């Protein structure tokens, strides 16, 4: 725990923002305010925030179906995100992407992705840009245990090793690819081991522990920024909701989610760690909670009030010029 007070408060704020954002999205989705599908990240916050705590706006990430947490951790505007999910004018993508394509290149966020395994090759490209233009930046691919089985992911890891690129492959193993267990679908049951087989350092970390993720990412980022090539991190984490909002979760064990919330809550872990070590006071954290609650209320109010996209935007932004 080498982080200063400001960094710890920021980490907590980002994690709480993700949690409250997702809880509110679940509510608003249930009320019918959000079209399409949403895949919620609650439970996995320590992964996104631990990883992104080492990244600046010019480092790139690519994300998954479950992209809200990564977007918030990378600095995307929360109000713009909520407007986007509500399919409103002024949304982060003008209401043309939605939850599954939420992106903001200005913050180095190359997009959530509707294609499982779609992101890792793009991250190889962002890392290639960093290496070719000698920017000193890194590129991080977030993939789930499901995406870890895709050929694109294998190809991306091999190419990153061959070209010795500043790429980091983060595998968030939440135990489920859609409605199927990782125990079944990941043949070797060892995602980090498989990544290591491509020729890069790979570690497993406890995704319920922000500090464990932060530390693993520190090593990977230093390696990447010092021409040491790619790394992989398997983050063992858990999701508090289904694959998507409205998922009946028939594949879950009895009381599984309740136990996860009681025993594996990364936010509660963080709070306990920093208060026990007297790094932050409970009242500091409470103040963040209040601030975040207001932000989420403001975002939802703005999203409810905003008009839908103008009809003519159907035809714009297909090409830069045509």
């Amino acid at each position: 725990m080498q982080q200063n007070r400001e960094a710890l408060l920021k980490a907590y704020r980002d994690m709480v923002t993700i949690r409250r954002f997702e809880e509110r999205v679940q509510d608003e989705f249930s009320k019918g305010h959000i079209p399409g599908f949403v895949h919620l990240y609650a439970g996995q916050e320590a992964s996104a925030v631990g990883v992104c705590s080492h990244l600046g706006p010019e480092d790139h990430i690519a994300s998954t179906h479950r992209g809200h947490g990564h977007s918030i951790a990378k600095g995307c505007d929360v109000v713009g995100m909520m407007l986007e999910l509500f399919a409103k004018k002024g949304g982060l993508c003008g209401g043309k992407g939605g939850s599954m394509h939420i992106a903001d290149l200005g913050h180095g966020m190359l997009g959530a992705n509707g294609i499982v395994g779609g992101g890792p090759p793009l991250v190889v490209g962002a890392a290639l840009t960093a290496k070719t233009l000698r920017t000193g930046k890194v590129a991080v691919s977030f993939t789930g245990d499901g995406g870890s089985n895709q050929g694109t992911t294998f190809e991306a890891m091999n190419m990153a090793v061959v070209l010795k690129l500043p790429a980091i492959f983060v595998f968030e193993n939440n135990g489920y690819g859609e409605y199927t267990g990782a125990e079944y679908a990941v043949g070797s049951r060892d995602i980090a081991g498989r990544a290591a087989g491509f020729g890069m350092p790979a570690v497993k970390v406890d995704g319920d522990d922000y500090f464990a993720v932060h530390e693993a990412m520190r090593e990977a980022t230093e390696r990447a920024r010092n021409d040491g090539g790619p790394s992989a991190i398997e983050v063992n984490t858990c999701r508090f909701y289904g694959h998507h909002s409205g998922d009946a979760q028939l594949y879950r064990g009895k009381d599984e989610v309740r136990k996860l919330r009681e025993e594996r809550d990364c936010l509660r872990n963080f709070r306990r760690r920093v208060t026990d070590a007297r790094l932050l006071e409970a009242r500091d954290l409470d103040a963040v909670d209040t601030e975040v609650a207001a932000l989420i209320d403001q975002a939802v109010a703005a999203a409810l009030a905003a008009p839908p996209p103008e009809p003519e935007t159907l035809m714009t932004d297909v090409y830069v010029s045509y």
Partner: protein
Amino acid sequence: MAQKTIRQALHEALAQEMRRDPRVVIMGEDVSGGAGTPGGRDAAGGVLGVTKGLIAEFGEERVIDTPITESAIMGAAAGAAATGLRPVAELMFSDFLGVCFDQIYNQAAKFRYMFGGKARTPLVIRTMIGAGRSAAAQHSQSPYGIFTSVPGLKVVVPSNAYDAKGLLIQAIRDDDPVIFCEHKLMYDLKTKVPDEAYTIPFGEASIVRDGDDVTIVALARMVHYASEAAEKLAREGIDCEIIDPRTTSPLDQDTILDSVARTGRLVVVDEATPRCSMAADIAALVAENAFAALKAPIRRVTAPHTPVPFAPVLEKLYIPNADRISAAVRDVHGYAR
């Protein structure tokens, strides 16, 4: 002005653009060749030699040999383009789109729209098309129609060295993803090509031959068969106008429609298979917009609805030729209601 082959024209375009802009990089399988071998680098320069020698001037950081890994090549090129490079990625044979289409179709093509106009993806994918080498079903197709059907992609199908150079330079300077199709039997075809860099705008067809009787729209190698047919038909008193669209997305609809308004007859020649194809697309365009001008049904001269065969005798039957084009032209020219 010197005569140059399409291979030389493409090489020159790449070298000139790489000199002009350090963000332009080439990547793909064996674009240099010989990495990790006793023989050493530049062993190939692409399987048909277009990029031979570029590594000597630009180094391995800008002439990037990749593993045989098309998804990673296309995805890396898309990701690099969205983050500041201007990659020219090689998809060795267009048939290989089958293993990497997601990165082109769902990623690169859609970034700008999905992200609300905030992305630029200045990516060029050079890829070989065409039958005629007994390369059989997985190395001989002409799937530009598939690419053309995808909003967000631009598609270039040059028929000669002059166009190839100007269109490739335009493709590299363009801020959208461009699929650049090179016919594998045309690399040695020569025409006059300026030494200096120049661009040809997308969406401007070339009128290869003027005529008032029948409009022939032909793509890539078919332009040459159409010209051969038109020579013969001229001696029979039938004057054909030949239009080479040069780019199928954007498509120069006006030049085609203006020509048909004058001739009243259309033959479309396309080496690709006929269903949901460029030939079908152009026929629909004319039927929808120039119906009143038509004096005869539209005829399409295309490959059959089959994979590309291996045996030379079958492949010859597969590819449209001057005789089939002539027969179609005579047919529409002699049509009486």
